[in-house]
């Protein structure tokens, strides 16, 4: 019995270490990730009012059919919003399989894409 215990000591310790790491990684380990959200669509610009002409193209009276409003040029897009989220390790594993995470020079982890994830690993 003692011989079995002695023989089993190292494998059992290894298994417990592996199991402990798996449980901790799957259930408790997370990391702060900087994500860039898709910029919001710019708010619709007010349409410029264009008074209808009372004279038609043939010189006669106009039928007042042309739209009275004309679209203005679009406004400047708003800067992308960044947000810090806690990503669990299983999600981080999924992200790295598509090349979705990178480390900035500041040490901060950042998601490499915004919106739809890339379809495959970049390598």
């Amino acid at each position, binding site marked *: 019995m003692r011989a*079995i215990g002695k*023989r*089993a000591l*190292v*494998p*059992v310790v*290894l*298994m417990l*270490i*592996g*199991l*402990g*790491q*798996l*449980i*901790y*990684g*799957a259930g408790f*380990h997370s*990391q702060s990730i900087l994500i860039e959200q898709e910029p919001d669509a710019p708010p619709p610009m007010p349409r410029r009012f264009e008074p209808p002409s009372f004279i038609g193209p043939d010189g006669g009276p106009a039928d007042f059919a042309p739209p009275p409003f004309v679209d203005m040029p679009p406004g400047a897009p708003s800067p992308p919003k960044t947000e810090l989220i806690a990503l669990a*390790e*299983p*999600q*981080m*594993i*999924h992200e*790295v*399989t598509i*090349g979705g*995470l*990178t*480390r900035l020079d500041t*040490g901060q*982890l950042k998601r490499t894409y915004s919106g739809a994830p890339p379809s*495959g*690993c970049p*390598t």
Partner: protein
Amino acid sequence: MVAMANEKRKPFTVRLARERPWIQAIFLTIWLGPFLPRLHNVCSPVFHCYSCPWAAFACPVGVLANFSALHVFPFIAIGTVVLVGGVLGSFVCGYACPFGFLQDLVGKIPTPKFVLPAWAGHVRYVVLIAFALVIPYLYGEGHPLFFCSLCPAGALEGAVPNAISAAIAGNEVVWPNAVKLVILGAVVVAMFFTQRPWCTLLCPLGAVYGLFNRASVFFLGYNREECKACDQCDALCKYGVLPEPGVNAARCIRCLDCTRCGAISVGSILGPAERTKAGTRTGTGTSQDR
């Protein structure tokens, strides 16, 4: 009693070794399951690229390299490898690894085979430390020597199929990294001339599992009473592992071909077989621990 137990175990290990290609094929359908859900947030215990369109799990070496680049400790990848390695050691390499299965299939083609020297197995640790840990940690995932940028399994299972499917679909083709393709080509050519060149020379995951061979729950036991010093085990091992440095050597992939000699069998920490130590056989009819 012990001898009887060993006699009962022998046919099982021999049968297991004989059925090994079928077992490998069954495992292949698990790692490469086109109809299985994509569990890319779970690490498999085998070397198999998650870029493969059919890959069901994440590759532990790819995760290790990427997490090293992120400076984050990969608890799940390390935990999976330690747990599986602690139970099975390199049985995973011999029976479950899809890239090993491919090499075994190519190795069946009758071409002259050379056995790599024992020291070549240490190159795997250089690959593990340099390309999967240090370079990613220091230079990030964009470095040309980042492990996944060199991996032949990634080229074969991910980059090439993805490029072909993009071409068939008429989409823009992203050509695979040339270095990766050259390494893949070299490994494929080497498969014809040596058994499992990737596993015995370069595989970082095999290097880790090899370390567990001396401390796993299941191991190869050597029965000195049965040994006739006939060198049959030496002849049966295609990888040049036996008789030195021992049946639980780090280079062994545990294919169990050597169990046909009768003196070597599978043991467990609960069974009667003794885990044997490294050593050499005298060749005088009596034998020392191996």
